[in-house]
């Protein structure tokens, strides 16, 4: 019999596909657009600001419609983060991300989609992104002991 977890996998796969289409159409998979947006001054390219302006109203509307429901469709509980605490790791991690984003011109989603498209720089970025994630685990283990 089909169970919730099977539908979850199908839903997640479909969301991944639609998300990648959005990334490609929006221009997020073109590092020169990302850098052109982050680089202030003459020749500033504001277009990527409109990606958030397209995404947030749609998602905010659905969120406020959905949040009163008891459960999502394919699960018995919600998994939306509820923490409100501003911590040092949050700020330092986000600052590091901002720097890496400007240095490479990729954030994680567009890098994965572009790697799928065979863009060599994205393949390099994704491989080393996993290295960074593993380093974070190693660092966490050392800082605990």
């Amino acid at each position, binding site marked *: 019999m089909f169970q919730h*977890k099977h539908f*979850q*996998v199908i839903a997640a*796969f479909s*969301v*991944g596909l*639609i*998300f*990648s289409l*959005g990334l490609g*159409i*929006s221009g*997020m998979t*073109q590092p*020169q657009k990302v850098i052109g947006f*982050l680089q*202030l001054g003459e020749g500033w390219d*504001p*277009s*990527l600001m409109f990606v*958030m*302006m*397209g*995404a*947030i109203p749609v*998602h905010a509307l659905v969120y406020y419609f*959905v949040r009163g429901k008891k459960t*999502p469709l394919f699960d018995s509980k919600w*998994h*939306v*983060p509820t923490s409100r605490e501003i911590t040092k790791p*949050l700020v330092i991690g*986000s*600052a*590091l*991300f*901002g*720097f*890496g*984003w*400007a*240095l*490479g*011109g*990729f*954030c*994680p989603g567009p*890098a*994965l989609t572009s790697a*799928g*498209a*065979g863009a060599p*720089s994205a393949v390099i*970025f994704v*491989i*080393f*992104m996993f290295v*960074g994630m593993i380093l*974070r*685990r190693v660092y966490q283990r050392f800082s605990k002991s």
Partner: protein
Amino acid sequence: MMQSILMALAGGALIGVAASLMLLFNGRVTGISGITNGLLSYVKGDYLWRFAFVLGLILGGVVLGATHPEMFVNTTNRTSVMVAIAGVIVGFGTVLGSGCTSGHGVCGISRLSPRSLIATGVFMVVGMLAATVLKFVIGA
């Protein structure tokens, strides 16, 4: 420029739809760094959906790459070494900061999460400062 803006809006709306379906169906935030990081350790019942999402994200790229190669042209002056260093920093930073452009920038801001508002403010400001300074250091 006008066409770029319209494409950004349309693509953004599609990203909003995708994140909304994830919420509605699976009750989850579409945080790409977090979902991807979860692939590095197997947790029973919390793995296959992550794999399926990332597979969809990559397969979408395979299809788009074949039909619209212009979407994946990289004309920046970033060398492979710079991109590799950026990858390490982004991997480390997004996990430390519990999110990236999707989880904090789209999902978190949509529900006015204070953590995501701060995180997005920080990575946008630092990203803009870094890109603007790099223009003088490496010429673009």
